[in-house]
């Protein structure tokens, strides 16, 4: 089912940004999205953060699709042009807001990851405070902000590593990307080792309340 409420001005790329902390699995999520775009016959480019930042630093994956037949030149998303930001960690989502387009949406996990620098400081970072700020920053009626209760969903799925699929499913479920949950299922089957397909499909159902 495609509920594409997204109205993008003129012919330009579909820009999806995945952001989180090194080791959270943004790279595989970007691969799954690219696979879904390929199966639609769209031109697609992705870019990854690989290297030092993977050791617990901020990482960003860019996925750009020519969903209206355009050729993608740059692998990186420009400021103010992301149609959707999928945040694996709330502060990382907040950090990338300058990249969000005026109509774009943020889909963020709830669970915070506390950096050592914050644990050392007298005022530790609290994810709940950032999420409050996010609720304050978006107009509630716009439907542009989705906070995903990842901990409860993952407990139900029984595997923490499924966070990336839970977030992708939640993002598609907003109806703001011209991809369907079936597109996601097909892409997962093409990208993931057979023994992990089932848990990931379960994660999609758990994330979208279809269980």
């Amino acid at each position, binding site marked *: 089912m495609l509920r594409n409420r997204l109205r993008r001005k003129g012919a*330009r790329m579909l820009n999806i940004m995945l952001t989180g902390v090194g*080791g*959270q*699995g*943004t790279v*595989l*999520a*970007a*691969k799954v999205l*690219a696979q879904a775009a*390929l199966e639609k016959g769209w031109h*697609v*480019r*992705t*870019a*990854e953060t*690989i*290297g*030092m*930042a*993977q*050791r*617990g*630093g901020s990482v960003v994956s860019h996925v750009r699709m020519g969903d209206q037949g355009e*050729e993608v*030149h*740059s*692998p*990186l998303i*420009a*400021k103010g042009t992301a149609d959707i930001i999928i945040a694996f960690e709330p*502060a990382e989502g*907040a*950090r990338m*807001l*300058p990249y969000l387009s005026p109509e774009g949406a943020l889909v963020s996990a709830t669970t915070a*990851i*506390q*950096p*050592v*620098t*914050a644990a050392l400081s007298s005022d*530790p970072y609290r994810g709940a*405070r950032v999420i409050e*700020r*996010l609720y304050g*920053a*978006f*107009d509630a009626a716009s439907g*542009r902000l989705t906070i995903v209760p990842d901990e409860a969903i993952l407990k139900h799925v029984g*595997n*923490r*590593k499924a*966070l*990336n*699929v839970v977030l992708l499913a939640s993002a598609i479920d907003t109806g703001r990307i011209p991809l369907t949950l079936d597109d996601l299922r097909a892409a997962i089957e093409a990208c993931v*080792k057979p023994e*992990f397909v089932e*848990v*990931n499909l379960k994660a999609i159902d758990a994330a979208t309340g279809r269980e």
Partner: protein
Amino acid sequence: MTKKLLMGNEAMAFAALEAGVRVVAGYPGTPSSEIVETVARLRSSGTARGVHVEWSTNEKAALEVLFGASLAGARGLFTCKQMGLNVASDALMSLNYVSVRGGLVLVVADDPGPISSQTEQDTRRFAAFAKVPVLDPATPEQAYDMVKAAFELSERFHTPVIVRPTTRVDHASAFFELPTVTRARPVPEEGFERDVSKWVIFPRRAYEAHGEINERLPEIARVYATEEPFASFNPCGVDGIAGIDTAASFGIVACGISAAYAREALRIVAKRAAAADLELPAFRFMQIGTPYPFPEEPFATFAQGLSDVLVIEELDYVIEDELARWAGRTHASLSVHGKLTGEARDRGENDVDDIASRIERFLGLSGRLRLRRRAEAQDATVAAPAVPAEELPVRPPVLCPGCPHRGSFYAVKQALRGTPAVLCGDIGCYTLGNAKPLDAVDTCLCMGAGITMAQGLAVADPGKKAVAFVGDSTFFASGMTGLANAAYNGHDITVMVLDNATTAMTGSQPHPGTGFTLMGVQRPPLDIEAVLVANGFRHVYHANPLDKDASIVAVKAAVAFEGPSAVIFESPCVQLIKPDEPVVIDTEACTGCKKCITEIGCPAIGFNPAIEGPRSGSRGQSFIDPALCNGCDLCTQICPFGAIAFPATNAEEQQGDAAESPAEEGGQDA
């Protein structure tokens, strides 16, 4: 043929294999490492047949291995990051004079930013210095085409050829049609043919060879201008927006990934101009994908009638220099704008937004567009959602939870308490020992330099103990000459070898100390202690870095010795091992003193001011994130109150999460 999403690095590996490459060698370094890894993976899966692939001890060794293979007629592929070419430069400078037989292609990955490097050196500049042709791709697709073309060029002109991608080409992905099997081109039947007048470099031969190089470079520039696929590496125009206007007086020249950014920026500028009812001045656009030798002919055609040209490139002002030189020599009335005139970023990465505003300024649009934007901003009623940056935690890279380096650094700091010392760091994950609270790196320069810098410090500042840290891969790559120097010249240093049994920072590559090879053969691992002893280190201690007290004892003993001494800290990288069960904090026993955090700074330990307990009152308590903790057991030795322990001795605190086994496919980035 199947269609697969490939990173630029993977695509270049395929290109080399399709070109029949016979020998592939390199040393790991971000952003280049995936090229050799891809070749190794395809070899072991049976896709790449007949290829030899290796991680060499360092870049110099790799390039020399390949040059030997080239003399036997084999095609060779070398890979490294930009600073790796510094290490291999001795071989490169001379082998260009000797000339190659089998095609020899060097993929040298530059790192604008820099994102994971010590310098922003520009390999295009290095290529010109070495008089070696260089190709500069803008996309993974172009990188693939260029690697194939580079082999042809190399054999035709007997020259090494450099392909110089940057991080955003190496680590960007696109879909490629792939062959199911590749075969290495066989070496000629006769193999190496003896010819002392050719393969042995002497001053007289070098003089002749220099002449041959000087003759072939202009010929190569002509090939760039007239022959495919090279001519297509310098394309003009931008689809959708002309950019080849013959009446234009403005020209825009871009290189590498900046060409992709500029094409997109031009779309944005065109759209903004149209929205403001402004006419886009006529302009031309050109990408220079063959920077050296500079393709003068196509540029001269492009520049005809232009009064001004803006150059957009990352790292150095290489093309800007070439254009200025061309304009001077041809007396063209062409003004060249770029880094040197302050009209382009002088360092770091370029991006679409910045290039768009610079192009607007260059085309004389910015004033009128700014007025327009100001008017729009006044009309806008809804502010863009934002959270102030100062409310967000900074997140620098850190040693992983359970990383054995944490224990090594902690033991050294504890053992040296009250002793003046200089801690010389080196290149690898353990550079991250600089972060607070460990704060255990005073210097860091380049691969292997910690061992030798410590010697200079010991000579010039004998009042302080000189301590060097070196990882196991760096030890073999460039630490050994420094060891010999210490023993020979009698320097009082202590070397801390952080042996985690892998090249960790670049993604767990094997090295001589592991014995694993990319050919799937297990060799006897080189013994670090034996190497130390053979290099004159007579006082060598062993320690398990996760055993705090024993490690401190070992460091004290080694540092006390006047002369070269070493401690080998042995514990495998956490990326290689199955995690142990996480520890837990006994809320009854935790006093909230934060010592576990302020002493070792493990990312798995957080602090929650809301937790209350009988001994912590309202101070708050530390907590363990069970998803991050891997049970290394270091923090249990730090807590003065015995409040941290494995759940077996703390049954009432046991959490359900601890039993979960991680499923590998969910998200291993590294």
